[in-house]
């Protein structure tokens, strides 16, 4: 299998290649003065099974277009199959029509990816388990939760926390992996017009909440949900709060917000590349490369 990378997460692509005992095959991605990109695959791929690694975090549109072009280039050059490794699948939160007149952006990018010629997709911790149904090609849906479970074991006894009610399936799975560690959920209210978040209530038995709390989520975008959830947990007696979230889709303000929050440490996976300016002392990044290698 030949492994290629787009420009969004080359570090992960290199780790995946290493985990596969392979080297990354070269591509050239040229940006014209007007911003158009031209991709060139620089290795023969006739009758080869190929893998393209491209995370579709910010800048999401450019990363998607680059992925479509890469897949198209490989198919037109004779590749037998193209597995798109999209560790973080951008636009996944827009997976249905929330209000009349909206687009299902996820559906649009999935169809474009399939039209380009992707024959299989490998991705991590989707927001909803129904998302693979949008695809008509096979989807390997992996999770970084086992990596997080290993870390939590080292911290000892504590309580798992889902920052919103949408994460109950995830928190149950996590609890299973940790000998039925108790869990609670904080309840999030989001104003659809302003996007403002408020967290004021807890679901579950608060008496189970000890000193240590482990917040588990699929992604961190603005960081507001985590920060608000931590405030409430602290109010209820948690003194050591750790955060585990797969996708570090950090907005510009997120790193500072998290560093100055009540949480002690933030663990994320390398599904989204975190540039130097968005790294902060409390952040620790774990790699999913071995999992991708095993699923190839």
């Amino acid at each position, binding site marked *: 299998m030949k492994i290629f990378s787009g420009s969004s997460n080359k570090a992960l692509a290199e780790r995946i290649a290493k985990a596969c005992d392979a080297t990354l095959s070269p591509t050239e991605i040229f940006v014209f*003065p007007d911003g158009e990109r031209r991709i060139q695959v620089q290795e023969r791929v006739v009758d080869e099974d190929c893998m393209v690694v491209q995370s579709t975090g*910010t800048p*999401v549109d450019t990363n998607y277009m680059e992925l479509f072009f890469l897949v198209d280039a490989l198919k*037109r050059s004779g590749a037998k199959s193209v597995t798109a490794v999209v560790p973080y699948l951008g636009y996944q939160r827009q997976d249905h029509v929330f209000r009349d007149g909206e*687009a299902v952006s996820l559906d649009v990018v999935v169809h474009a990816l399939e039209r380009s010629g992707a024959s299989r997709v490998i991705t991590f911790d989707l927001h909803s388990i129904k998302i693979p149904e949008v695809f008509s090609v096979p989807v390997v849906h992996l999770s970084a939760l086992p990596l997080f479970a290993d870390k939590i074991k080292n911290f000892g006894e504590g309580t798992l926390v889902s920052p919103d009610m949408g994460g109950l399936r995830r928190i149950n799975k996590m609890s299973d992996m940790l000998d039925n560690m108790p869990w609670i959920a904080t309840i999030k209210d989001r104003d659809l017009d302003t996007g403002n978040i408020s967290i004021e209530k807890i679901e579950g038995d608060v008496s189970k909440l000890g000193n240590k709390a482990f917040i588990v989520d699929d992604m961190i975008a603005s960081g507001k949900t985590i920060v608000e959830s931590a405030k409430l947990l602290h109010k209820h007696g948690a003194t050591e709060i750790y955060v585990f979230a797969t996708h570090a889709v950090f907005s510009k303000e997120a790193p500072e917000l998290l560093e100055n929050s009540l949480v002690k440490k933030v663990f994320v996976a390398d599904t989204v590349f975190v540039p130097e300016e968005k790294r902060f002392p409390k952040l620790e990044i774990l790699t999913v490369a071995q999992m991708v290698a095993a699923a190839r």
Partner: protein
Amino acid sequence: MAKNDDFVLLTGRSNPALAKEIGKILGVEVLEPISVFSDGEIRVRIAKNLRRRMVFIIQPTSTPVNDHIMELLFMIDAAKRASAFEVTAVIPYYGYGRQDRKEMSRVPISSSVVASAITAAGADRIFTIDIHSEQQEGFTRKPWDNIFGSYSLLPAIKKKHLSKLVVAAPDKGGMLQATGYAKLLGSDNIALVYKKRDIQLNNVSNTLAMIGEVKDKNVLLVDDMIDTAGTIVNAANHIHKQGAKSVRVVATHGIFSGQALEKISDSAISEVIITNSIAQRPEVIKNKKITIVSVGPLLAEAIKRIKSGESISKDLIL
């Protein structure tokens, strides 16, 4: 049913001014359904009933091209899901149009990828102005109407009453367009600037050569677009050196990337006439050498004909 209630105009963020101009001509409001999430993901919401309506989405896919393409795709999707009767993607400038073939090994045909994505999203028709190569219409099985900016540009040129006019192409690929303009301007004089390999020197280099007589003539250089302006400026300076009285440039799409404006300022070009197929930056609008002509009336007329089922090729395509 109220007048004009049978069709709806949408615009993304690439050229809302052009969309509003078209809306004004056609007497309808233009909807702007795009907003953005904090992480940069685009969000579309069309806050109007589109059921059984014809929908026209006006969105040139200019810089930032990838975002503008995605906005277009999501608007198409939202319109189809809202039960629009027919969705036309009006793309006055079609980005990635120059990547229309495999010019080297193992490259994508990016323009084809974009066309497939547009039709996969649900567009029933693509509508462009001066696409880089008309063969691209074959990238999809949906109808693709391509019209020419000459309809809007010709009156601006004719107004100048240029005597001793020569229409010139800046490279071999521009000959078809140059002969078209010459015919429409009633000029028999055509010139061509082309790259010649100079092998007299030890190192091979490209020098310019010319076919056609330009001495003491008013020359009009014609091209489909001006991007970094390298080709057009070199051709203009070459023509000037051959003794031309004046050199003007006419092109449909003004991209003006990189050092384009500086190159034009420092060149022998006296005037550049382009259209607003791409929304122009303030420094382009302020540039004294550049005249911008609107394709709004042309697009408004075309939209009117599409919705009423009239021919577009009859007298709109010059």
